[in-house]
């Protein structure tokens, strides 16, 4: 089996990784994305294309069957890994590669994914144009590439047009804390937080959302650029190191005529509708379609980067918006954003629906805070 040994070891040199983020696992996901980018390992979208399964974040009993199902779908050689903290990511990936190189060898029988019995049978119904076509029931999330981890939207599809959409039932999570809103939570609790730290966190959050939107829009090169900037910001890069690069990114993406042509008119949300739904933050201020929202993120990011050196002012959690809107522990901004989804998704095509979700980018970790507080109170 000398040849097989050699092939397995060669293939294991640069494994492709299926990254599964559990609710509350944002810092681990960020560390993993950064690590994969620096190593040049591919990030797989499906179990079929993956060698390593990396489950990032704290354990969540309600969603435990998800990674199990993905694992069953992966063909051997494969290795399953788990990283609960950001520091654990790099050693865990090293271990995964080593184990992949000496994993048990074939000949294998065919893998029989037992978890998913294929999509349920479609039944007919009337479509957008009044024709009778098959309706397919499908669930988007909780684990989908470039999708808010843990969010579940159940859709009824005809062709690739979404006829009906509703949010999945909330599930119990462990003690989660929303990474992107941490400075606001700490400031609400009375801790002094410099405004520079909050601005840094908010700019990184917008760049993270922008990276996800670019990936969903099929522009991986700009997704990488946005995520690099995000990682540099979180590592504490000074303003003069990141500002010029962000301005170039804003020029390439924000002023891109092709991206505008491809996304205008998708997911319209007027400022009035946004306020009525309880949305504050960039989505409400943009008051428009997908391009309005990504342009708002870009200009907000640039504004925040000019405040990175302001270490004297303290964060006022009421006056300053958290990344997704005014922070309110009882009703975090992402809850309102997620609540908008069913209305905005109905009647859109799948690609447009992905753009709408990415351009609002609700953070499922935030509503988790609310349920926890309610449970405690």
């Amino acid at each position, binding site marked *: 089996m000398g040849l097989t040994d050699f092939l397995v070891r060669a293939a294991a040199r640069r494994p492709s990784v299926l990254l599964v983020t559990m609710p509350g696992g944002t810092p681990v996901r960020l560390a993993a994305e950064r690590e994969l980018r620096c190593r040049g390992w591919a990030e797989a979208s499906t179990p079929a294309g993956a060698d390593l399964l990396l489950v990032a974040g704290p354990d969540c009993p309600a969603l435990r069957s998800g990674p199990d199902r993905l694992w069953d779908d992966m063909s051997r050689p494969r290795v399953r890994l788990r990283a609960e903290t950001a520091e654990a990511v790099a050693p865990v990936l090293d271990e995964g590669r080593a184990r992949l190189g000496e994993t048990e060898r074939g000949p294998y029988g065919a893998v029989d994914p037992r978890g998913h019995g294929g999509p349920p049978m479609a039944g007919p119904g009337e479509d957008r144009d009044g024709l009778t076509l098959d309706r397919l029931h499908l669930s988007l999330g909780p684990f989908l590439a470039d999708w808010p981890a843990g969010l579940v939207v159940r859709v009824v599809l005809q062709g690739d047009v979404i006829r009906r959409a509703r949010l999945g039932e909330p599930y119990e999570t462990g003690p989660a804390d929303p990474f992107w809103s941490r400075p606001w939570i700490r400031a609400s609790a009375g801790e002094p937080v410099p405004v520079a730290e909050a601005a840094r966190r908010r700019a990184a959050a917008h760049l993270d959302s922008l990276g996800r939107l670019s990936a969903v829009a099929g522009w991986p090169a700009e997704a990488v650029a946005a995520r690099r900037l995000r990682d540099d910001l979180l590592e504490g890069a000074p303003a003069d190191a990141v500002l010029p690069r962000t301005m170039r990114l804003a020029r390439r993406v924000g002023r891109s005529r092709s991206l505008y042509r491809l996304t205008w008119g998708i997911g319209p949300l007027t400022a009035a509708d946004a306020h009525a739904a309880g949305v504050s933050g960039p989505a409400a201020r943009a008051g428009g379609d997908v391009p309005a929202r990504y342009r708002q993120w870009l200009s907000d990011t640039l504004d925040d980067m000019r405040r990175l050196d302001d270490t004297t002012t303290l964060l006022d959690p009421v006056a300053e918006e958290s990344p997704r809107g005014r922070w309110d522990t009882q009703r975090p901004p992402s809850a309102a954003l997620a609540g908008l989804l069913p209305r905005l998704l109905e009647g859109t095509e*799948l690609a447009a629906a992905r753009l709408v979700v990415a351009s609002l980018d609700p953070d499922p970790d935030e509503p988790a805070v609310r349920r926890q507080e309610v449970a405690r109170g």
Partner: protein
Amino acid sequence: MVDAGKWWTLPVAPALLLGFAVLAVAGKTALDDRGAGRSVTPVGVLRPLLAVPRALVAQPRRLPASDRLLWRLGVVTVPVAAVLSTLVIPFGNHVVADLSVGVVWFNAMEVLTWAGLWLAGWGPNAAFSLVGGYRFLAQGLAYELPLMFALISAATGAQSLRVTDIAGAQHGLWYAVWMPFAFAVHLTGVLAFSFLGPFAYPAGRDIADGVLGETSGVDRLLLRAGRWLWLAAGAAMAVPLFLGGGAGPGLPAWAWSLVKTVLVLGLLVWVLRRLPALRADRYVELAWVVLLPAAIVQVLVPALVDLGP
């Protein structure tokens, strides 16, 4: 004069195509590495080739209620059609088969990818995969007609469907110079039928890699190789159609073909990173309302020139 049908061209043509495809993959990886802030090394840019050992050792996957036969047929069709298309593409002074209907042959092979990708999306019985297969048809309806008229422009200019005649008819003045629109539409079509970069819509990240999503092992390798083989074949075809083939001062014909193909390939690889995915629901209107009428006007130009003398 162009030599056709030498026995050694039969193995050399696919090998050359593969070489160009590997070159394109390496170029794309180098650009990606630079964009991601990694160091660009000659060995590092070849790491996509590790997909070959990975495919060979991977365990086969069986999906519930999949149509294994059609799936496999579709996956194999894409790279095979790409290789068959090169039969009529002259390289320097040699061509495998100098068909009198070479341009139509290339077009027919390219259209086989329609069937191949739709089957590849249909076979696994998975929603995202199927959406990917349908997306390629929508994309095909958008790019195909302008591409056909671009090919017809070159054929009309040379008054022949034989690819070597078209290359020979451009005495010093390339068709790319006086039919720039047809050239641009051809290059767009190349990106579209290799479903890469801005035309990666059927294999989009938003539908978890679409047609590629459920494939693993050798199937995945064949489909991914098929994309880059098509990119290389399309670039190689642009040289005789629009850039005068192997003609040029100083160097031998094969060297000119090599240089021109690599330059076209480089341009295409550079464009891959510059645009977001052109979704067919938007692109089809641009294709039919703007590109198609303009392509027909472009055909009129060589037609009038031919009438001239």
